Every structure is written in C-alpha cells, then in structure tokens.
C-alpha cells in the first residue's frame, strides 16, 4: 500500500515539477529572452513624448524699457473624467475643500476646465489631491503681454499658437521670431489606461532654452509721440 502511495506521489510531484519548470521557462522567455520586443510594444502603448514651451524672449526699447513679455498661468483640468459617478463626485467634493470657488466648466466630452489662473498657494494646496486623483491635471499656459498703448501694440505685433508653440504673426514679433522663440524642450511620460499621466514617470529628454531678449533701436517715448 505504502509502495503504491509513494509511486503515485512521485508521479504527482514530477508533474508539478514539470509544470513549475514550464512556468519558470515562460517567465524567462518574456523577462529575458524576448524582453526587448515586449518592452517596445509596451512602450508604444504607454509612453508619450511632449514639448515644453520655451519662454519667449522679451522685447525692449533702446533704453531697456520692457515693451512685450510673457507670463505663465496654470489652469486646472479634469482630464478624461471618470465615468463612475461616485469617483467623479468624490473628486469634485474634495476639490471644493481646496478650491471652494471652483466650478466645473465642461469643455468637450473628455476634458473639463475646473479653474484658471491658479495662485502659487493654490498650486501647493492641490499637491496631495493630484497624487490621489491622477485625472486632475495642471496645465501651464503662456500669455504674451504688451505695454498697453495702441501704437506700441501695433508696432510690436501679434502672436499665435501653432501646435502649442507661440510664434510671431506680424510686427516685431514676426521680424525677430527666430531669436525670441528659443528652443522648445522635450519630455517623456507614461500614461495609464485612461491616458492620464502616471506620477513619478515624467522624464526630461531635452531642456527648453528660453528665447533671447530683443533690444530695438526705437524708444518708447518716440512710439508714444507717434501715437499722439
């Protein structure tokens, strides 16, 4: 009886050993032997590269008075709002504790604008919430400001955006666009299944180089005189 038991146990243990060997083989196959291929396929699914806007250079008159400059603002978005009502409500309720005045503003099916022009203290207050809810994203926005005189504005010209990059449309902005623009940087980030950024995976590939400040030959006083 014991002999039969031993034989049957041996058969069973041998089968388990073979199964374990097969599992170990599959582990080696995906982790080591074909690693490169599967890593590349995974990266194609989850890794995204993006550009970092270079700060556009200032425009100064011949006396060093700033005529045009850029300012950065930060807006809060709910990207790919979760379909589950419970989670969505939880996000909005917790957000109201940090930013009582924020009201969701629907901008398309997938992205809600929650709050514009966040202050530094609001940015700091949001830090914990952003870690818990990756669907909340702070998106930087750059605005070009010009000394508020019509003649100066006409002389400096306008800017517009092309693929998230600011460029000069006319006036001095267009004339000195290459010098003012600088070189945009590049980053890489991993996205989760809902296409949200995964915390801690952001990597700088190339830093942004700010545009040069351009000193014009004209003085602000001359421009104002011309306006009058």
């Amino acid at each position, binding site marked *: 009886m014991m002999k039969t038991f031993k034989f049957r146990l041996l058969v069973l243990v041998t089968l388990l050993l073979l199964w374990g060997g097969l599992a170990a083989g599959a582990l080696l196959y995906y982790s080591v032997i074909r690693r490169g291929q599967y*890593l590349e396929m995974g990266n194609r699914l989850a890794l995204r590269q993006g550009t970092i806007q270079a700060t556009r250079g200032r425009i100064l008159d011949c006396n060093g008075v700033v005529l045009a400059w850029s300012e950065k603002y930060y807006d809060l978005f709910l990207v790919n709002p979760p379909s589950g009502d419970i989670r969505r409500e939880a996000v909005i309720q917790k957000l109201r504790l940090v930013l009582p005045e924020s009201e969701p503003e629907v901008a398309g099916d997938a992205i809600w604008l929650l709050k514009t022009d966040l202050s530094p203290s609001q940015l700091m207050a949001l830090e914990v919430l952003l870690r818990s809810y990756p669907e909340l994203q702070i998106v930087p926005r750059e605005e070009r400001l010009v000394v508020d005189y019509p003649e100066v504005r006409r002389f400096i010209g306008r800017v517009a955006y092309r693929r998230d990059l600011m460029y000069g449309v006319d006036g001095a902005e267009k004339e000195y666009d290459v010098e003012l623009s600088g070189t945009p940087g590049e980053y890489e980030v991993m996205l989760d299944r809902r296409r949200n950024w995964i915390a801690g*995976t952001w990597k700088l590939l190339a830093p942004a180089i700010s545009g040069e400040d351009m000193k014009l030959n004209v003085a602000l006083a001359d421009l104002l005189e011309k306006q009058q």
Partner: protein
Amino acid sequence: MVHFNWALVVAGLLFLLGLWGCMAIYNATLMNAAPFYFVGRQFFWLLLGLVLLVGCARVPFRWYRSQMKFLAPVMFLFLITVLPLGIQVNGMRGWYSLGHFMIQPSELAKPFFLLTLCLWGGHFGDGLKRFGTMLGITLVWLVPVILQPDFGTATVYLAGFLIVYWLSGGVFWPLAGLAAALVPGVIYLLATRPYIMRRFEGFLTPLADPGGSGWHVLQFQYTLARGGFSGMSWGKAVWANCYLPLPHSDSVFASITESLGVAGAMPIIFIFGLLVFAFVKLALLTENRERRIYVAAFGCLVAVQALLHISVNVTIFPPTGLTLPILSYGGSSLIATMIGAGIALSAAKPESEPKP
C-alpha cells in the same frame, strides 16, 4: 526528531512567504492614496494565521476526524448561504460583509472540503464506487462555488478531487471516461457562449485583439518584460499598478517580477517547491493512510493553486482570478491556508496519541 524538523520547516516557509507577501502587497499598492492600508491588514492576517497554524497543529487529528460530521456541514452551510446573503465583488457573489472585514467562504471551506474527501471519500469500496462517491462529494461542494461564479476557485476544488482520488489509489479509467463524457458539454458551451471562445482566442493570439480579449494577456507580458532579469527596483511596479487587474492579489506574481525581475520571482517558485517537498517528507513519515493522503494532498493543492496563479501571470494559462497562496492580499485565503497547514501538521504527528 526528523518529523519535528519538517513541521518546523513548513511553518518557517509559510511565515517567510507571508512576510514576502506583505512586502509584495506594499510594493503593489505603493501608488494608492493610502499605501499602508492593504499591507497593514495583511500583516494582521498573517499574525492571526500563525496563531491558527500553531493552534490547529496542536489539536489532535482524532478530534478533526470525530468532529467532521459537524465541521463539514457547518462549512458547507457557510459556503452555500453566501449565495443569498453575501455581497457581490468583482462580479462574484462570494463574500460576507462584516463591516470593515469581508469573509470569502469558498477559501475557508477549502481545507475542510479536502479533509472530507480524505476521511469519507476513500471508505466506499474501490473502482467506480469510490470514484462516484468522491465525485459526488466534490460536486456538492463545487456547485455553490460555480454559482457565485468563481471559476478560479472551482478549478482548485476540482484539482483537490483529482489529487485525493489519485493518491488514494483510484483507478485511471473512470477519470478518462469522465473527461470523454465532458467533451460534448464543452463543445456545447463553446458553441452557445461565444465570450468563452473569444477569451480563449485572446489567450492564444493576444495580438489579434490587443485592446479587447487579448488585453490582459498582453499586459502580463509587458509587465514581465519591464522586470527583466533584475527588475525596476522595489516600489517601481508602475505597469502592474496601472495596467494589471488587482496587482496586490490576482496579479501579485507579475507585480513582484516587475519590481525584482527574474532574480526575485524565481525564488518564489523555488520556495513553493521546497514547501511541497516538506509536505511530501511529512506525508511519507505519516503511518496512517488517510492522514498521509491529507498531508500530501494539502501540500500538492497549495502547489497547484500557486502554479495556477503563476501560470496565469506568465500567460501559459488563460486569465482567471486566483490568489497566490499566502503571498496575495486576502485574509480568507491566508487564514484558510494556515488552517489547512495546521491540520496537516496535526495529521503528521505520530500515532502515539492517547486513545479517546
């Protein structure tokens, strides 16, 4: 003396796996808002499990044998009443909710099902009669599990039946007959339930439908690839956290592989192998037949569940929700394994106990 040592080896390995599991759960939930929530609970279950392991090992085996007529019906009642009284989690009605805790009866009933098979199944003649008895007992316990429906756990119950039947000297031909009889049923299921076929196709050719039926298989493969030989380092199971289902439970082996690579995952397979070896040694030192079968069957069943979990995670088995014994998050699973191991250690004690 040798006997005592193997029992100690079993207890030591279970504790080691339990601690490893706590670290793995922390690693798999590090990106959560409360990263200590799951690991804290699991550590509590591990301590409770150790107490139950020692407690169950100290209870004489004759007590289990004499009380099985009560224990088995109570556990079965516990298992079947979850269908009307339990709550639904992840599409399965398999949990009782007790405020902050949930109990999964299909896990807790597992060692008692195995004990029922070992103590009662082998006493009804030989050949077809024994096969029929054991299969009948198995079906009675299996039906509530299938109705939940928890196919992963049902597979483990079925494996328990096959192991005990084989170790108790059951003849081979009724098994072959059963397999042949099941073929038309399987064909009917595949023909009438296209999602089963799609799931199978997704497993065989995941790239044919990468965003649908092949999704989970591919995510497991990408996770293993990210791990490589030495892993992304502890706490960096990013892919497992974001793309795998339940990285602290059903996908814990893949999440460990992503963090520690092959170098950290292979020892787990090795330790489970060592655990089976220790149970086999204990079984061979046990004189009584039914006790011997229980000790060996329990060790093998733990190994089968571990291999099923690992096989799903390394994509040589179609995706199904199943925990890695001791390592995965879940109090019911951990405590059931500890109780089962405690009963096995009790069964492996020498026969020199006083007669009641």
